[in-house]
Every structure is written in C-alpha cells, then in structure tokens.
C-alpha cells in the first residue's frame, strides 16, 4: 500500500508548469537553523558554576552564596535553557551510546555526564548544591524541613538504584528515555507540560516543603552515581571550620539525614563478634548478586513492555489470536506500511533477548549494591566528631550556621 503511495508521490502527477509571464520560482525556504554555540556556553557555565559551588561550600562556607548560585542555575539551566541537556538525563545518552553502534553521542553531552562526576570525586556533591536546576528548585522551596522515620528513609533510598537500573536498561535497548519522560520539573521550566507532569511536579514541590528535595533523595538516578563517587571524594564540605567539639548543636539540623554523629562515646562492641558479622555480610554479597540476577532475569518479559515495538507486536498478536482489534496509531501505521508480521515478531524476539541480558546485569548491580550497603552498615566506624555522610550530603550548607566553633575570633556564620 505504502509502496504504491511512494511511487505515486515520486511521480509528478502535475508537471511543473512552464510559465510565460516571467515568473521566478521562490527559493525553497527552510526554517532557521539551530544556533550552534549554545551547548558550548552551557558547558563553560557548567564548569564555572561547579567551581563556584565548590569554593562556596568548601572554602567560603556560605549557605547564602550557594542559594544565590541555585537561583542562577535555576534561572539559566532551568528557565533559559529549558532543562535540556542535563547531566541527569545524559546517563541515558551514555547508555545508548555504549550499547548501540548507530548512535553517536555529542561531545558536549558526554562532558555533561562526566564533569559533575569528576567534581564529585574531588569535592563531593557540589553539583547538587548549586548547579542542578532540579535540585535548585527543590532547595529553594524547602521551607519546613521535617525528618522522616529511619525505616522509611532506608527503604526509599533504594528506589533511585532501581530507577537508575531501569532507565539504563530502557535506554540501552533503545526503548525509551524514562528519566526524561518522568522528569517532574521540566514542564515548569518550559511553562508548558501535559497535566500528568504538572501534577507529579506540583506534588513533589508541595511535599518538598516538608520533605526536602524529595526527587533528589528518592528518585534521582544520577544522584546514585554522585553518591558513589562522592564517597571517595578527596575533599569534602565539613560541618565545622576547625575541630569538632561534639557540642551536638548540628545533630538535628540536616533534613537529609546526612550528618553522622561522633561515636567515640559509643560502647565498643566485641571485636570477635563484629568481625564475624562483617565476614558473614561480605560472603552474602555474591548471594545477593545471584538473587538479583535471577529475579531480574525472570522479570525481563514484563520489562520488555517498555519497548514500543514489543507493545505493537503484542497488540498485533492479540488481534491475530484472540480477535481483539488493534486500533492504536502504531498498529494502524504498521498495517499500512509494508512490514510483515513475521518481521515484527522476529524483531520482538531479538528485543526480548536483549532485555533478558540487560536485566540480568541490572539485577546483578542491584544485588551487589544491596550487599555492599549491608556491609557498610556492619562496619564499625570511629568518628571523633560530627561529619557529613559523604554519599548523602548535598553540600547545601544548612549546617554551617549551627556550628559554634570560632575561627580567627569569628563564628563560622559570621563569614556569610
């Protein structure tokens, strides 16, 4: 059908007239081209804002400065550039480029992915502190921080890992970009969004007044990577400008549960028992990894629903076998186009195979992450003072003003 159609189009049904009146053919006008330099300005500003955020968080210790930087990032990366490309979404481009031969990743997108990670490795999560527009909009609306129960916190904190796994799987199999599709705030940046996005974003913002940064904490897939990288950061924001006096004034001020108390006063556990527990947990890691692998391998048929071709194949098959009419736009277009059902089903099988492989890896990653987090819970720590949890700390600087330690006869918050 379409073949015939194309031939008809190719033919001149009505040949171009030969004008006698000296008519000049107008130029075939294409709309304007895209300005090429924006991405490089973005990149320069990304590096600039990251450096400034690092300086403000680590050296200047200024919460106010970080807030103003957030305002700038929200205005520029959010409202001016309308939220694209952001490092959060670039995870998918990298996954797509890694696992597909026909996609080439623009150098700017790759750098957008890597640069915040490099900064995390050097200075902690300064990207979250004042550069990420998604973080900034939540940081600026978090007025009344409330602490969540530990149990809720520890369950919810695993969601970003699963989200990251699914997003990478979905992007790597060329199915869809989950992170972009369910980005809660990009509609606000563009002042234009489908109502589902408005509701999701609005709910998150309202919840964020009390549960600060809900997206960052419980959804953000890039945050998982920043969390891991920041744990190994060479330098990191400190709560106190000098020596911690264990005054406990900062104990309850962090809404992100990212302040680790000093535990010199905690009664030491029996070393023998502790060591045994540690070993047991380490030995459990392979078990968790295998469990995750098996679980996700078996889940893969359900996950293939993320792919539109698989959805189409299912619809066509349902029509063929059960007589349920396939009426979706994709099904109608498929019927019009020349592709046969055998081709479609063969493609579906191939996608299934890719998902089976991919989801096994996702399961493995999640299992190992879970195992490692248990190990870190079981490890004894010896902290002489109150320190930020390097993985969870967003370097927001809320804790600065609560520290009474003086430097150069100044209170730490006098420097603001």
């Amino acid at each position, binding site marked *: 059908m379409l073949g015939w159609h194309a031939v008809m189009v190719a033919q001149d049904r009505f040949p171009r007239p030969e004008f006698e009146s000296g008519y000049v053919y107008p130029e075939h006008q294409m709309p*304007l081209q*895209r300005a090429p330099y924006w991405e490089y300005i973005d990149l320069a500003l990304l590096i600039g804002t990251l450096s400034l955020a690092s300086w403000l968080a680590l050296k200047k210790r200024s919460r106010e400065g970080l807030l103003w930087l957030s305002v700038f990032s929200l205005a520029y990366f959010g409202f001016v550039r309308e939220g694209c490309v952001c490092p959060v979404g670039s995870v*998918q481009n990298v996954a797509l480029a890694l696992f597909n031969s026909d996609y080439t990743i623009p150098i700017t997108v790759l750098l957008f992915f890597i640069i915040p990670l490099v900064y995390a490795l050097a200075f902690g999560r300064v990207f979250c502190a004042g550069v990420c527009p998604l973080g900034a909009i939540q940081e600026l609306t978090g007025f009344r921080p409330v602490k969540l129960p530990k149990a809720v916190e520890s369950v919810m904190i695993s969601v970003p890992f699963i989200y990251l796994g699914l997003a990478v799987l979905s992007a790597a199999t060329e199915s869809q970009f989950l992170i972009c599709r369910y980005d809660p705030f990009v509609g606000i940046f563009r002042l234009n969004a489908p109502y589902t996005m408005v509701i999701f974003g609005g709910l998150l913002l309202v919840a964020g007044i009390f549960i600060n940064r809900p997206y960052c904490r419980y959804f953000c897939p890039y945050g998982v990577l920043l969390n891991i990288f920041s744990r190994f950061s060479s330098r990191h924001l400190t709560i106190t400008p000098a020596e911690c006096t264990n005054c406990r004034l900062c104990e309850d001020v962090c809404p992100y549960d990212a302040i680790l108390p000093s535990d010199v006063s905690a009664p030491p556990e029996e070393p023998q028992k502790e060591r045994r527990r540690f070993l047991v947990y380490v030995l459990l890691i392979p078990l968790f990894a295998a469990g995750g692998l098996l679980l996700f391998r078996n889940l893969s048929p359900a996950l293939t629903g993320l792919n539109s071709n698989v959805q189409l194949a299912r619809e066509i098959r349902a029509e063929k076998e059960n007589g349920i009419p396939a009426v979706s736009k994709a099904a109608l277009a498929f019927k019009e186009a020349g592709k046969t059902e055998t081709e479609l089903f063969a493609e579906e099988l191939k996608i299934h195979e890719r998902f089976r492989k991919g989801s096994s890896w996702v399961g493995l990653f999640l299992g190992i992450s879970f195992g490692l987090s248990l190990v870190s819970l079981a490890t004894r720590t010896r902290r002489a003072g109150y320190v930020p949890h390097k993985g969870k700390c967003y370097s927001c600087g809320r804790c600065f003003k609560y520290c009474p330690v003086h430097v150069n006869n100044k209170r730490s918050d006098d420097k603001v």
Partner: protein
Amino acid sequence: MKEKKNIYQSRRDFVRKAGKILVVAPVIGLPLVLSKKVSASGNVWQIDPHKCTQCGQCKTNCVLTPSAVKAVHAYVMCGYCDLCGGYLRQGVKTISTAAEDQMCPTAAITRKFVEEPYFEYTINEDLCDGCGKCVKGCADFGNGSLYLQINQDLCVYCNECSIARNCPSDAVSRVSDRMQYIPKEKKVGGE
C-alpha cells in the same frame, strides 16, 4: 592497642584507595570506550518526509504549543494547481479562498495568482500548527510538495523527542547537527 588501631586504619585506607581506583577507572575509561562514538557536533530531531504518514501526532505531542513542527513547501515539486489538494478541502463546491473551503484550520496557507491557471501557495509559518492536513491533501491528490519539518529555531531539543516517542511510523529521528533539515527534492531518494 595503638598498633591494632593502626592496622585497622591502614586496612580502611586500603579499601578506600581501592574503591577510589574502582570509581576513577570508569571516568577515564568511558571517553576511551566511547572515543569512536563521539561526534563533535550535536544531534537534532528531524522528520523524514518520506516516512511521514501525516497522522497528526506532531501537532499534539510536541512539548511546545503550538508545535515546533511546521509545514514547508518545496516549490520545485509544486504543480501550481488551481484545484490544490493541500489548499482546498475535499468536495468543495466552489474553488474559492473562503475559510470553509480551506484545508488549513488556521488559514496559514495563502495563494497568489500567477497566470492562468496557476497559483503559488505560500505557508505562513507563524500560523502553522503542524497538523499536517495540507501535507496529507497534497500527498494524496498532488505532487507531495508540502511536507512537515521540525523548525530547529523553535525546537527545544528534548533529550527524547516527545513526538518521536509517539510517531507511529518512526519518521522522527536524530540527525546530525550539520544537516538539520531533510529537504524533499524533485527526485525521491532511494528509500
């Protein structure tokens, strides 16, 4: 006791160092692995007019309102018909410029008399909302000189084009920044 503490400390440092190497490796490795797949120029989203079936999704699925998709006109392909399938609705009684006769719901196409019996058709891009009705009409009854393209000046470059996700015929795809548009020429390429 003091010595024991030192052992713990060094062990901890060792684990930390090993972890650091583990996370630094992908940061250095990633650009190396991807070195062959990196392009200096970016990608933009564009409609392949030869795949497009004018389903109307472009108008409603773009994150922008009105859509960044606009109809463009390849004059070299146009037959300059009086009875234009892209300009006039099917089954009109008279050929006139009356609104009820026009295919375009926003009156974005205007026509100008050239010489008997030929008319030149021009698209007013500001009015066009990318519904593709004229494109369908032109493809069905004319030479197919009207077609849809994403206006790169309006497009906000979503990482995943919302139209691409909903396009039933996979006509929207990433093209190189250098190309930006897929023009329709007189001869249809060997698709």
